[in-house]
């Protein structure tokens, strides 16, 4: 083990990096879903073949989501820093990074949710309508519960994507494994540090993936 790596470990920087990566990812994902879940449901429900078609709203949301989705994260990140300052009072550190991650991830989450909810069998929705269920009840009692397994898989994919974004946040003042591999590895020509960060990231992704998929399988009543 190189001296540098030994030092990072002894100082607790590596451990902190792992923690920061995990916590930035999960907190950001939580807020991204807070925005993205309703947005995705709305995209699905207001579509032409949705349960409550509102063409103009659907068009606006669709364009908005596309705009945010088409900006590369590294550029979006810098562009929304003023917004971060407005929301959390600073444009530096993990708090600010969480804001940028949420803004970047919410439209992505919205698309994931939209595609999951679209998969819900039209016949089941029709049955609910025939029982006199209104749109709100169909959303909360039919669309979301019936799409749950697919939503869980989507959440796993979103988490992994956000984890990837969070590494980039290391370049503009965020913490975590991304920051460590850039600051202590790339900039000091220490490839060992880079590879250790890569390995740790792979392990975290594997854990999220494995746990998420297991939950999705276990809770899907179609294969019970």
């Amino acid at each position, binding site marked *: 083990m190189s001296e540098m790596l030994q030092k990072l470990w002894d100082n607790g920087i590596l451990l902190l990096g792992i923690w920061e990566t995990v916590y930035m990812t999960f907190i950001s994902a939580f807020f991204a879903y807070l925005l993205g879940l309703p947005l995705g449901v709305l995209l699905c429900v207001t579509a032409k073949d949705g349960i409550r078609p509102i063409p103009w709203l659907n068009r606006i949301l669709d364009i908005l989501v596309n705009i945010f989705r088409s900006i590369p994260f590294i550029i979006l990140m810098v562009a929304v820093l003023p917004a971060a300052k407005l929301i959390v009072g600073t444009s530096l550190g993990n708090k600010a990074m969480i804001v940028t991650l949420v803004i970047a991830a919410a439209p992505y989450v919205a698309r994931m949710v939209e595609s999951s909810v679209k998969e819900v*069998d039209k*016949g*089941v929705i*029709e*049955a*609910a*309508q*025939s*029982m*006199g*269920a*209104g749109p709100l*009840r169909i959303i909360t*009692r*039919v669309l979301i*519960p*019936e799409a*749950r*397994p697919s939503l869980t898989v989507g959440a796993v994919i979103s988490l992994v994507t956000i984890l990837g974004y969070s590494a980039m946040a290391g370049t503009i003042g965020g913490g975590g494994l991304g920051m460590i591999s850039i600051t202590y590895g790339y900039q000091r020509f220490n490839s060992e540090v880079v590879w250790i960060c890569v390995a740790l990231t792979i392990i975290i992704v594997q854990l999220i993936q494995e746990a998420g998929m297991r939950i999705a399988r276990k809770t*899907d*009543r*179609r*294969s*019970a």
Partner: protein
Amino acid sequence: MIELKSISKTFKTKKGSFTALRDIDLTVNDGEIFGIIGLSGAGKSTLVRCINYLEKPTSGKVIIDGRELGSLKKKELLELRRNIGMIFQSFNLLEQRTVLKNVLFPLEIAGLEKDKAISKARELLELVGLSDKESSYPSQLSGGQKQRVAIARALASEPKYLLCDEATSALDPDTTRSILELIRRINRELGVTTVVITHDMKVIDSICDRVAVMDSSVVTEVGTVAEVFSDPKSETARKLILPELKLTDSVSGGQRIRLIFSGESSFTPVVSNLILSCGTPLNILYAKTKDIDGHAYGEMVLQLPDDERAAAKVKNYLEAHVQTYSVLDGGEDSVGNASKAVG
């Protein structure tokens, strides 16, 4: 009572408009099982969806117990739908809910107290014979069991009406029979007025009181099942009632006639008597009759001898013995010809 008054429905697509229903008038009386039969694409599924306004007609009126659906507010329409249960070909159960919770669903919508709702749901599961499956998930059930759950669910809000959209089309013959029996029992015991959509004459034959025949967006005839069955006026009705006849189109030889048994005594050996007294051989091409309390119901297709004199003799005999029959020509358009009814 369900009244449909000159209902039309046009769908607008990118390629232009498509008329699914054209000027349809129908009345479904309280307490009856009303069948709507037609080949696929005839518009019957659209028509049944107009009854609960899942599909809003382009023009015309749907009146249920005197209330015109088009004039109702959204909330009133949702409430009215609770009075009209519906079951589907693909069952449409909530896959992530247990059987019991599926039946509870409409009661949740109606806002019933949980205790009451659960005992009501259990009662219904008992009615459909699935008490032991209440904590199973739909994926663990057979098609017939799924449809039973769907029926229990449709009845949970104690509807006055039940709409069945090809409810037995995905089931095997034995299961179909038991589901039809259940529908009939519900109609008799609970007095639920039922509308049945199907492409299968057997369904109409076994449970319906009256039937409407649909073809390319219009209703071609309406009547009691016995009337339509014994003397189908429209070509569609004939096609649906005698689907097997198509197979015999290529048969060469004499004229074919269709004998109709609509309640004569089962104990008269009609065909034997016919052959013996006319002294001519007859070929039975198709037969489907059944005995209900000593009365014969059904039909038979006979091929008459080539010899015209012998054929005339047979017809005379039938007329003399008050046996309803119609002549089916041996040509291409066999089922579309004029029929002659006697008696």
